[in-house]
């Protein structure tokens, strides 16, 4: 429960996740896992060692990338 060090505001919790592995769920059936390197007020994200997964009817489409800038404005 106290994993995130008592910080409660949503962006503070994201701050506690820097340099840690995160799972980001995107709109639709897409998700990304990787190491969070940075973010800003618009929740744009910079993620390293990314595994980009899309769930399709037959199974999963997986792609690997080195570094990703995820647009927070969507």
């Amino acid at each position: 429960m106290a994993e995130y060090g008592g910080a409660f505001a949503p962006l503070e919790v994201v701050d506690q996740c820097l340099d840690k592995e995160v799972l980001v769920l995107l709109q639709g059936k897409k998700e990304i896992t990787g190491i969070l390197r940075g973010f800003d007020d618009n929740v744009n994200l910079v993620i390293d060692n990314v595994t980009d997964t899309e769930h399709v009817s037959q199974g999963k489409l997986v792609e690997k990338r080195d570094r990703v800038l995820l647009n927070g404005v969507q």
Partner: protein
Amino acid sequence: MISSSRVQFKMSAYRTYRAPDLNAFVDKRVMISLNGRRKVEATLKSFDKFMNLTAEAAQEVQGEDKRDLGLVVIRGHDVIGIEPLEAIIPPRRK
């Protein structure tokens, strides 16, 4: 067009910067509806003025399936609604 000299409509600019009053929902189990037909059942821990949320013990509900997510941060941009799953005391309007 309706116009009245007696009624004055005043919009306080301050109101747009206030956080939504979700204090009644903190530490309660809630069902959060999200853009993109997602529903998440979780214990709400905190919020901010953009309605970004922090929640614990989150489970994504897809029909019958539940997927455990643990501690989550949800972007306010995508929050459609928050429904309490246990009794809450509604906030009093002052």
